């Protein structure tokens, strides 16, 4: 096994035992990047010199007895939406081609302080406003999309070109590429981790979080990035537990919600079968399955778009007028349409969101977590614009990609995406585990129990 194939946890164990050096690990990852990037296009830029310098520093620190913990010396990919001191942060857009921040985003700052080694900036769908990431290909089949908007991080983690990819998630942008690329991805609770220094798509829906090879790795990253930040008005001053503590406690007696509507509607039979099999695995581990009805299902996408469109257009208002021609066609169109959404409609969406949040809280009286499909299908082929369902309904691909992930953005609930299986073509099929506010620990515990019982989590994509 090459070092790049190791998960964060496995690499950390080798580093802690002095059987692997951060320099050796980083060189292996940089070689893997060189070998795969022509086919993948996961990185907006590769910071090889900076990575080698940081790895050498980590090696020296560890040799001197100053081991910082499991993130020390581990290669990190940072979504290009995040500010990175002295390294371009273009949001994968010509509009910000010359943007070189002077400081790191809070999440980056915390991970680098924990000793991580940034190997590059990963591509985002332009300004995170899309679920395709057209710059990048899926490492399981390079004729297919990786999903988005954190498509570069999803492709890179799956391909072994970093152990951790940072993502952001406004309508599913961590979980969509996680599901389509076969990684684990965590959208924490709204307000759990600071978004300061990350370009906004929609302030009231934006979250930041990691994409990793396994659940424990997500917990380790969350340990570092979670916490209150007065300068991010969304963050909440609640204690940050050690998210690894309860990972192995099992799920006996846990009440797992199974939706009777919405989440299994217009879902490919392979995905539905994989998730139902996964639910059987959880039941076999001692969980109790309980059917639940998803409230306000008809209003989910209406509220998501009613909030996202005007907030995004507000953020981009000046840039759209000064640099409109520099945006890609699809993003420019969304921004222009968002200018036409009335404030009363925006506020109506926020009011429905209040009712939705209350109804989900009531639904969780009966359950501890909700388990659902992560995506309606496996990764679509590049260029797919619509999907057709057996009942004759046709859906545009972006709507389909965000349909199952948006509820967690509207409710702010912590949600873990992880592979439930693979289809006959070898493409990953995703599922989601959603928990109560600030109860990432339970969500991660369910994920750990599941991945321990199956062999679908943690595979490296061959890049074909």
């Amino acid at each position, binding site marked *: 096994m090459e070092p790049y194939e190791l998960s964060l946890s496995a690499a950390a164990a080798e580093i802690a035992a002095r059987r692997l050096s951060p320099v050796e690990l980083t060189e292996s990852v940089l070689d893997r990047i060189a070998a795969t990037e022509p086919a993948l296009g996961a990185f907006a830029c590769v910071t090889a010199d900076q990575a080698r310098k940081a790895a050498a520093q980590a090696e020296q620190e560890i040799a001197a007895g100053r081991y910082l913990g499991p993130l020390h010396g581990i290669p990190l990919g940072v979504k290009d939406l995040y500010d990175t001191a002295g390294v371009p942060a273009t949001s994968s857009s010509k509009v910000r081609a010359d943007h070189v921040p002077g400081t790191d985003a809070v999440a980056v700052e915390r991970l680098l302080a924990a000793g991580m080694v940034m190997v590059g900036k990963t591509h985002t769908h332009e300004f995170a406003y899309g679920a395709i990431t057209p710059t990048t290909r899926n490492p399981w089949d390079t004729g297919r999309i990786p999903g988005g908007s954190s498509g570069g991080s999803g492709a890179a983690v799956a391909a072994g070109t970093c152990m951790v990819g940072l993502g952001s998630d406004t309508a599913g942008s961590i979980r969509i590429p996680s599901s389509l690329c076969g990684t684990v991805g965590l959208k924490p609770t709204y307000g759990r981790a600071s978004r300061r220094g990350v370009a906004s798509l929609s302030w009231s829906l934006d979250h930041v979080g990691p994409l990793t090879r396994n659940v424990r790795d997500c917990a380790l990253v969350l340990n570092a990035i979670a916490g209150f930040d007065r300068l991010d008005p969304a963050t909440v001053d609640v204690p940050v537990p050690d998210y690894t503590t309860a990972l192995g406690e099992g799920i006996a007696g846990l009440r797992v919600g199974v939706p009777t509507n919405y989440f299994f509607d217009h879902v490919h039979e392979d995905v539905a079968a994989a998730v139902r099999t996964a639910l059987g695995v959880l039941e076999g581990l001692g969980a109790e399955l309980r059917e639940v009805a998803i409230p306000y299902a008809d209003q989910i996408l209406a509220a998501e*778009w009613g909030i996202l469109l005007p907030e995004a257009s507000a953020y981009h208002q000046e840039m759209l007028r000064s640099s409109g021609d520099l945006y890609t066609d699809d993003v420019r169109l969304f921004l222009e349409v968002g200018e036409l959404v009335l404030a009363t*409609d925006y506020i*109506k969406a926020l009011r429905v969101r209040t009712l939705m949040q209350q109804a989900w809280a009531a639904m969780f009286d009966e359950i501890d977590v909700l388990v659902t499909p992560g995506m309606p299908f496996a990764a679509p082929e590049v260029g797919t614009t619509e999907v057709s369902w057996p009942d004759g309904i046709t859906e545009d691909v972006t709507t389909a990609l965000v349909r199952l992930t948006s509820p967690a953005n509207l409710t702010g609930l912590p949600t873990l995406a992880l592979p439930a299986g693979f289809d006959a073509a070898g493409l990953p099929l995703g599922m989601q585990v959603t928990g109560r506010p600030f109860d990432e620990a339970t969500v991660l515990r369910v994920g750990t129990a599941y991945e321990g019982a199956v062999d679908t989590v943690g595979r490296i994509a061959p890049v074909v």
Partner: protein
Amino acid sequence: MPTTPRSFAGEALTHAARTARLELNAERAGLVGPTAEAIYALIDRLDEVPLGETPPATAFDARWEA
């Protein structure tokens, strides 16, 4: 609420864009109008929900200290 679909055809789009101080040439208008109508058809599903005294899901922290 009236259930009339929102229209962004012709002069309606011109006025809406002017209100937003957004310049749209004919090519852009040809794209923006139909997309806006499709988005509003989706957003108008919110009308089905009785809202009563429900406040919006927004708030802020009034404290000054860091």
